[in-house]
C-alpha cells in the first residue's frame, strides 16, 4: 500500500492537484514515526512511510494546513475520516482545500506493548504472517502480532471511510465492536469500586496535555484550561480534585463531538485509559438519545445541541446500575 500511496502522492503533486501531502515520516527506529507534511517527490521518496506503526491521526493537522494557501493531500485511515468529517462539520477544516485519499486502516501496533514484554534494545520490528519478529541488540525475539495491537485498534468501530475523494485499497464496513465492554464493566461495579478505579488511574496524570493536544475535537483557539479568564484555568494537578476536573470537563467538552478515535489513550505517557470517559458519554448518548456517531456525517445535529421533548430525566442516572 505504501508504494501505491507514494505513487499517487507524487502524481498529484506533479500535476498540481495538490501543493502539499500530509502523511508520516520515518524516524530513528522502526517505530518512532512522526506525522509530516511533504512538498516534493524527493522528500516523499526518502521519508514517506505507511506501515504498522503509522497510527497517528493526521486530521487535526489539517486545521492548520487548510488555513494556508493551496491544497493538501491527506491520507486518512477509516477512523481518521470520522475526525476529519467532524472538523469539517465544525467549520474547522476547509473541505475544499483537502484532497482525501482513504487508505486501509489498522490494526496498528503499540510499541509500548512490545516493550512491556521486557523486549528492549529494539532495532527493527517485522510482521511475518502475524508474528512479530523483533531484532534487538540482545538478540531476536518474537511475539504474536495481536498482542501488540493498539487498544484503539483492538476495539475498532469502523473500517468504513465516511469521506474520501479516492480510495487506495478496499473500503470496509462499520464494525460491531466490543468497545463498550470496559465501560459496562465499570458501570456494573459499585460506586466505591468505580471511585477507587478512577482515583488509581487519574492520580497518574501529570497534566502534560498530550491527550488534549492530540485530540481532534480539542481545536479550541484557546482552551479553557489555558485561559485565566475562564475561572478554571490550571496548569498542574495540584489536588486530586483538579485531576478529576480536567478530565471531566475535557470529556464533557468533547461529548457528542468525540469520534472515539482513541488518540488520547494512545498518547498518554502514563497509560491512563482516558478513552473510557469519552466512551461513557458515547454509550450514554446512544442509549438515551439514540445512536449517534460523531463524524459519520457533516449535517446531523450533535446530541448536545439537540433535544426532544420526551428526553429522559436525569433521574435515569439514579435508577440504573449499582450505587
Amino acid at each position, binding site marked *: 500500500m505504501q508504494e501505491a500511496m507514494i505513487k499517487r502522492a507524487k502524481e498529484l503533486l506533479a500535476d498540481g492537484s495538490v501543493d502539499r501531502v500530509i502523511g508520516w515520516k520515518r524516524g530513528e527506529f522502526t517505530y518512532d514515526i512522526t506525522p509530516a507534511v511533504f512538498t516534493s517527490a524527493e522528500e516523499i521518496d526518502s521519508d514517506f512511510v505507511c506501515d504498522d506503526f503509522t497510527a497517528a491521526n493526521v486530521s487535526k493537522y489539517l486545521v492548520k494546513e487548510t488555513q494556508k494557501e493551496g491544497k493538501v493531500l491527506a491520507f486518512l485511515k477509516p477512523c481518521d475520516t470520522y475526525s476529519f468529517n467532524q472538523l469539517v462539520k465544525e467549520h474547522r477544516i476547509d473541505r475544499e482545500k483537502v484532497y482525501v485519499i482513504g487508505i486501509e486502516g489498522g490494526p496498528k501496533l503499540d510499541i509500548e506493548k512490545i516493550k512491556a514484554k521486557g523486549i528492549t534494545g529494539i532495532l527493527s520490528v517485522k510482521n511475518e504472517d502475524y508474528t512479530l519478529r523483533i531484532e534487538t541488540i540482545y538478540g531476536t525475539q518474537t511475539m504474536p502480532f495481536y498482542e501488540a495491537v493498539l487498544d484503539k485498534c483492538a476495539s475498532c468501530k469502523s473500517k468504513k471511510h465516511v469521506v474520501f475523494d479516492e480510495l487506495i485499497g478496499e473500503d470496509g464496513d462499520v464494525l460491531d465492536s466490543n468497545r463498550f465492554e470496559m465501560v459496562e464493566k465499570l458501570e456494573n461495579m459499585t460506586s466505591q469500586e468505580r471511585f477507587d478505579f478512577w482515583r488509581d488511574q487519574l492520580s497518574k496524570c501529570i497534566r502534560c496535555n498530550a491527550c488534549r493536544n492530540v485530540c481532534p475535537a480539542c481545536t479550541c483557539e484557546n482552551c479553557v484550561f489555558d485561559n485565566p479568564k475562564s*475561572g478554571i484555568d490550571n496548569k498542574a494537578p495540584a489536588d486530586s480534585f483538579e485531576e478529576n476536573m480536567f478530565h471531566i470537563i475535557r470529556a464533557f467538552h468533547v461529548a457528542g463531538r468525540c469520534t472515539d478515535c482513541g488518540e488520547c489513550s494512545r498518547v498518554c505517557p502514563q497509560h491512563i485509559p482516558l478513552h473510557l470517559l469519552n466512551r461513557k458519554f458515547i454509550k450514554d448518548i446512544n442509549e438515551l438519545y439514540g445512536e449517534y456517531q460523531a463524524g459519520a456525517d457533516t449535517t446531523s*445535529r450533535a446530541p448536545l445541541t439537540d433535544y426532544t421533548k420526551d428526553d429522559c430525566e436525569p433521574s435515569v442516572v439514579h435508577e440504573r446500575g449499582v450505587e
Partner: protein
Amino acid sequence: MQRIGVFVCHCGTNIAATVDVKAVAEALGHEPGVVISQDYQYMCSESGQELVKNAIKEQKLTGVVICSCSPRMHENTFRKAAASAGLNPYLVEIANIREQCSWIHKDIATATEKAIILGRTAVAKVHLNTPLNSMESPVVKRALVIGGGIAGIQTALDIAEAGFDVDIVEKQPTIGGKMAQIDKTFPTLDCAACILTPKMVEASQNERITIHSFSEVADVKGFVGNFTVKIKKKARFVDETKCTGCGLCTEKCPMKKVPNEFNMGLDNRSAIYIPFAQAVPKVATIDPNYCMMLKTGKCGVCSKVCSAGAIDYKQQDTFIEQQYGAIVVATGFNPINLDKYDEFAYNQCPDVVTSLELERLMNAAGPNGGTLLRPSDKTHPHTIVFVQCVGSRCDDEKGKPYCSKICCMYTAKHAMLIREKYPDTEVYVFYIDVRTPGKNFDEFYRRAVEQYNVHYIKGMVGKVTPKSDGKIDVQASDLLANEQLHINADMVVLAAAIEPDKTARPLATMLTTQMDTNDFFTEAHPKLRPVESATAGIFLSGACQGPKDIPETVAQASAAAAKAIGLLCKNSITCNPCVAHSDELMCNGCSSCEKVCPYGAITYIDKEFRMPDRTTKVRRVASVNPAVCQGCGACTVACPSGAMDLSGFSNSQIMAEVDAICK
C-alpha cells in the same frame, strides 16, 4: 478599588424579626471592598432609597448590595434609584434575605448566618459587575402581514390607519381568505361578502398598503425592528399592472375543466381565471398545470383576446427584498383532510360534504347559484344530517385533540338557513356538546331549535352508508332516548376540524417562533401577551394562533396591529443589556452556540484578525445580535472554548457566587 455599599432592610419586622439585621450589616461591613454597611426600616421607601442615593454620591460607591426582599420585587426600584444617583443600574445586586431567608427560617442564629452568607454572595458578585448599557436598535417603519384573510386585512388596515406602511403577502391570487368563501356569518346572518369585500377594496385602495398576492415569504433574516424579508412573487403569467380584470380571457379560455378551488372543487373554472368576482387584486392568473399554452405551447387564446396585452407566458418567479420593523403572522386555517374517516363515507359519496363545501353550495356565487342541491344529482335534499366534532376532540392520530370552536355556531347557522329557505327539509344535528359561549351565541342556537325546529340529538353518528337509491343511511345513537337511530338522509354535512395552514410550520422556522404540537403559533404568554409571539417583533393574528370565529379574529387582528403599531411608533428599541457576547479571539466558529439559540440571535461572520506576527488571518467567528438575544445563556454552556459569556450573569460572577456560598 471597589467601593461597595451594603444596605440591609428590616422590611418592618418581616426580615428583622428572624434575622439580626444589625449583625448582618456589621458582618458585611468587614467584607473586602465594602465601605459602608447600613440597615434601615424600609429600604424601598422614599427615605430608604434616599439613603442609598446619598451613600452612592457621598461615598462614591462603585457597587451596591441591597439585602432585602426578592429581586423579582424591587430590583428595578433600586436600579432606578442607583441610576438617579449616577450609578449604572447594573451595578446593583439584591441579596434575597426575606423570601429566601427570614420567611422560611425560625431560628434567629441560623437565619442570620444564612443572611450574611447571602449578602456576602451578593458582594462577591457585585465585585465583578460591569456597567451595562442598554443598546438602542433602530426600527424600520414598515410592517409585514403574512396572510391576506380577514385577520391579515384587518391588521394591515389598522396599521395603515396609524400611518405606517404595510405589505400583505398572500399566497393565493386574491386576498380574502376563508371568509370570502363563507356565505353568511353568525349570529347575525349577514352576508360575509357584503362585509368582507369593502374591507378588501379598502385595503387595495389604501396607499399605505401594498398587496403581494400570489406570493410567499421565502426567507426572513434580522430581528425586531429590522427584519429583512425575501418575498417570492410566483409567476402568474399575467402582468398585474396591465390586466384590467375584464375577464374576457377566462370566458374564451378553451380549457374549462379545472376544479374550482374557490368553490371547493364543486364546479370547474378555466385555466386562466379570476378566483371570484370581487377578487382583489382583480387580476387573472394562469394555472400552469392546466394551461395548454404553457404545457404544450399550442393555444394562446387568452393572449389574443387580451386587449391590454397583459398575458406573458414567459413570466418567471421573481423575488423582492424588503425591510420591516414588525411582522404579523395571519396564516389562518384549513379544514382537515377527512380521508381517514371511512365511517362517514366522505370519499365514497358526493352528498357527504364538509361544512365549508356547504357554504359554497348555499352561496349565490356558488356552483348552484345559491340553490341548495345535492352535488350528486342536483336534486333538492329533504333530509340533512349534520355531524359535529368530526376530527375535533380526538385522541388519535386521525384527528385533533382540541375543540375547533366554530363548528357549533356555524352548524346552527346552516341548520337555521336551510330551515328558513327550505322549510320542507328536516335537519338533524348530532352533537356531543353544544358550545356557545359568546355574545348572542346561545340565543342563536336556541333559535335554531325553538324557532326553526332543528332536531338536535345528543349522540354521534357511527356509520354513514350510501345506498343504491341515492339515499344515505345514517346510523347514529341518541343517547338521551337510549336508542340507535337510522336516518334515511339525502345529505350529510360534516363539521370537519380546522387546523393551521400547512405553510405555517416552515414559516415558524424562518421566523424562529414557537409552535405547539398542533402547529398553532405559541403566544408569548397565554394570558398576558396573547397576540405576541415569544420572538420579539413577531405578532400573531387570527386562527394561526388557535381556532377563532370572525369577531375574535378581527379583535385579535386589531390587537396585533396595536402591538405592532406600538413597536413601529418607536424610533428605536431599548434592548435588555444582559445578553450574550462572544470573545472573538477565542471563538472557534464551530456553530454549537448557533444551534442552541432559540432566537437565531447568533450568526457567523468571517472576520480578519491581525495576528501578533503582523500577518492577517480570516476566521469564522460567532456574532451575537444584542437586539435579538434574550439572555438565556444556552450558548454559554454549548461553547466549548468559553468564548461565549453572558453579561450580568457571567461565568466569573456565578463562580464568585459559588465560592462565596461554599466558603
